[in-house]
């Protein structure tokens, strides 16, 4: 049950999806609280979300400066303890920069920012984001990024495949991502990063509720 789960939503200067994350999580019955990047603890959170946006401007590289924010040590400890951490879009970029997830996110192949709704396919259900969801399930979820083209070295890629750590793949690769990767997780399955925005698909009035499936799984793991 996701009822009553406490989620820390981290706010960097330049984050912009933090309220959206809070809204979606609370819609599912969780209690979400904003945690400013200068904090050194996550309070009594059961789960952590790094939301989308442009932390610290993202001018040099997405996530390059954010990973030094004080809160990131607490996030790393939280992750090391096996607790659920979700990086959405910019949050995913930050997790890779911080070394909590492997690989990197490059500019989209088309060299354009992309805001559109895409089809995703659940590729593994071993992580906190997709537990209980059948592999092959299709979800319709918005993407919104310029640098969402996932890449990593071949050894890492093989490892991701072997260990079933590719969580979500695009049905129609929109950005040139290696292996159509939309989201991956760490070895423990408790840290997940994805470029699509599940919080944008939690309200029928906005077109899709498919994001709830993912966020509910995440909350239940908390």
């Amino acid at each position: 049950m996701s009822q009553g789960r406490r989620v820390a939503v981290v706010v960097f200067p330049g984050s912009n999806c933090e309220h959206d994350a809070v809204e979606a999580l609370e819609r599912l019955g969780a209690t979400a609280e904003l945690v400013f990047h200068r904090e050194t603890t996550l309070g009594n959170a059961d789960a952590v979300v790094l939301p989308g946006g442009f932390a610290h401007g993202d001018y040099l590289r997405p996530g390059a400066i954010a990973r030094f924010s004080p809160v990131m040590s607490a996030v790393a400890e939280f992750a090391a303890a096996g607790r659920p951490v979700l990086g959405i879009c910019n949050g995913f970029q930050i997790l890779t920069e911080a070394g909590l997830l492997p690989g990197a996110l490059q500019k989209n192949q088309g060299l354009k920012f992309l805001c559109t709704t895409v089809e995703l396919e659940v590729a593994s259900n071993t992580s906190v984001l997709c537990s209980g969801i059948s592999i092959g399930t299709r979800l319709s979820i918005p993407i919104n990024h310029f640098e969402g083209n996932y890449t990593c070295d071949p050894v890492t890629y093989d490892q991701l495949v072997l260990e079933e750590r590719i969580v979500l793949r695009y049905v129609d690769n929109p950005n040139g991502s290696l292996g159509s990767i939309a989201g991956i997780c760490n070895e423990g399955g408790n840290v997940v990063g994805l470029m699509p925005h599940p919080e944008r698909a939690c309200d029928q009035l906005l077109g899709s509720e498919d994001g709830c499936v993912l966020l509910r799984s995440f909350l239940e793991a908390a």
Partner: protein
Amino acid sequence: MSPAEDIDPVLPGGRVSPAEDIDLDLHRQLGLTDEELVTIEKILGRPPNRLELAMYSVMWSEHCSYKSSRVHLKRLPTTAPHVLVGPGENAGVIDVGDGIAVALRIESHNHPSAIEPYQGAATGVGGILRDIFTMGARPIALCDSLWFGPTGGTRADASDAADTARSRWIAEGVVSGISGYGNSVGVPTVAGEITFDPCFASNPLVNVMCVGVLPVERLVLGQASGAGNLAVLLGSSTGRDGIGGVSVLASAPLEGGDGSSAKRPSVQVGDPYEEKRLIEACLALLDAGVVVGIQDLGGAGLTCATSETAARGGMGMEVDLSAVPRREAGMEPFEVMTSESQERMLAIVPPEKMPRVEEICARWEVAASVVGRVTPGGRLIVRDTIGGIELASVPAASLADEAPLYERPMSAPSWDAAVRADAAEHLPPPGDCGSDLLALLSDPSVSDKSWAYRQYDHQLFLNTVVPPGGDASVLKLKAPGLPATNKGLAISVDGNPRWCALDPRAGTAMVVAESTLNVACTGAVPKALVNCLNFGNPEHPTVMWQLSEAIDGMSAACRALRLPVVGGNVSFYNESGGVDIHPTPVVGVVGLIDHLLRPPPGMALTDGSVLFLLGPPGTGLGGSRWATSLRGFTGGTLPALNLNMHVSLIDIVVSLVRQRLVCGVHDISDGGMAVSLAEMAIAGGVGVAVSGIEGHAELFSEAPTRVLLAAAPAEAESVERFARDSGVPIRMIGSAGGDRIRVAGLLDVTVATAREAWSTGFPE
């Protein structure tokens, strides 16, 4: 204060620095006329010095003072019971009930975008955002109205290859600039328009609109009150960028590069990250109640912000130049006072609140420097340091409000009569309306704009119920800190230089009509309008005539619709090689939906639905895209607009949509009924069969006040009765089904062909 004190004050630090030897025609180099100089001397009781001259020059520029347009703008209707703030402030504000207010404003960034498309457009976005959060509103939506030269690759386009390549560079740069800044600053871009026309080849138009929301009680005005309060400069440091015309004042040319221009860039570079932190910091300052007024620094920089806040509050201000953080060494006082460096705000702060201001700014990593204080007496005094020598001393109100007003000569263009004499209706009818329809659909001005808005984050804040692509975009009226409601906002921006070139008065009225109808198609009642008047050189009498006519047309339409004009912007000198652009008034209309519980029907056709044409019959082809783009014919007269009928139409469309009696709705505008039918078929993925259309004239006419409605067969009778009761003509014209778009006796194309033409109009 006695008037005498107001003229030539003796203050600590001594008198104003004496007028240096000023070249006799320096004022002319600064764009001031001889008469304006005399006026300034009368105001000061002495000749101005160089800094003062610079300050008058920027404040009395057309851009800041509206000196050529103000006499005409006065004719616009600006009041209504729900208007909280009308024109004259940074943004218009309306009360939408439940303790919520909506702020809106539109502005142009045409000239910078012509030479550095990305940064020109980006800084345009930054500027309009500041106008909105200055009012205490959180920006929740941006819209962009874009006008470019033809980019080539279309059938009708025979433009020179270098021109088209340049237009493409501009179009792509502008769109990515809006994307780059808007997405990163974290405000969704939810609506807009993009049109290609040869008149914009050297002078593109980039108009950006912003909508913000606020709890009514947070509304603040950009005014300085309370003598002794501090003037605090927030945000970026000040550089030599955007000094433009006043740079002739430089005492020595800057070393390096190709003279002074090398170090005084006329184009600024936007910093969305700084702006994002400014938004958060300013809204936090207002929530904490620690500022009495706040004002953005836009055109004319610090001179504008200090004089306007002081004048609005009926106060004076002393400015300490040494306290202004600079980006470069060796800046002269006039450079600091007129720099248009981006991402800066001026807050008026009671001294005892300053520690709290510093704390909030530190949290958001926003620089805050006390650069002056509010004084009694209405004078704006600039010193090099506190208590230091006076570099300038002028009545603040004389800068802000007392620029001369001009009634520039106006005359209707001589070709006016000739242009109107001929008639588009006399053009030979097309051999095949189907191929004309496909040509129109593949015209990049008509075709799918998703290549652009896909680059814009249009979903942020979880508000976007109708994304770009419909008649108007629809947002939930929701933001952190606002009372919860089920209300929604509909937004549309529209312009039409084809119509306005032919008849600026009627054309502008038709633009207002179209924009309100777009909003009504979502079930929203139009509540307020903002406008951006893009015109040529005001020294040309025909341009002033166009402006005056456009304003009269806008006034007439807004009065009939009871739609207040709550703000606007005038952009003159849109010309190249002495040729003015077509008059291009752009309007942004915001409408209100009381209960946004389900998405509005939208334009998509549903298989089996019955199709109605609601509104008076229309066959006039003057100014239509069919006549101008496909036949190259720009004469004739515009089809008539009956404003009373339009008001009734808006009412009934809103009612039908709200009662959910219709399952598809789309107005007839660009490209006429043929294009509207095709767009509905493409959106629904289903064909349509229509009959009883009189010929190509009815098919391609852009006569106003017409809507296509689709209804489930079971509702058809109610829809018809409803329309009849309200006196608006209605006619059943066909039904949806199959995979072809057919108009009996006129055209027959497959939906797939139409979609192909429409979706590939702007080849990537």
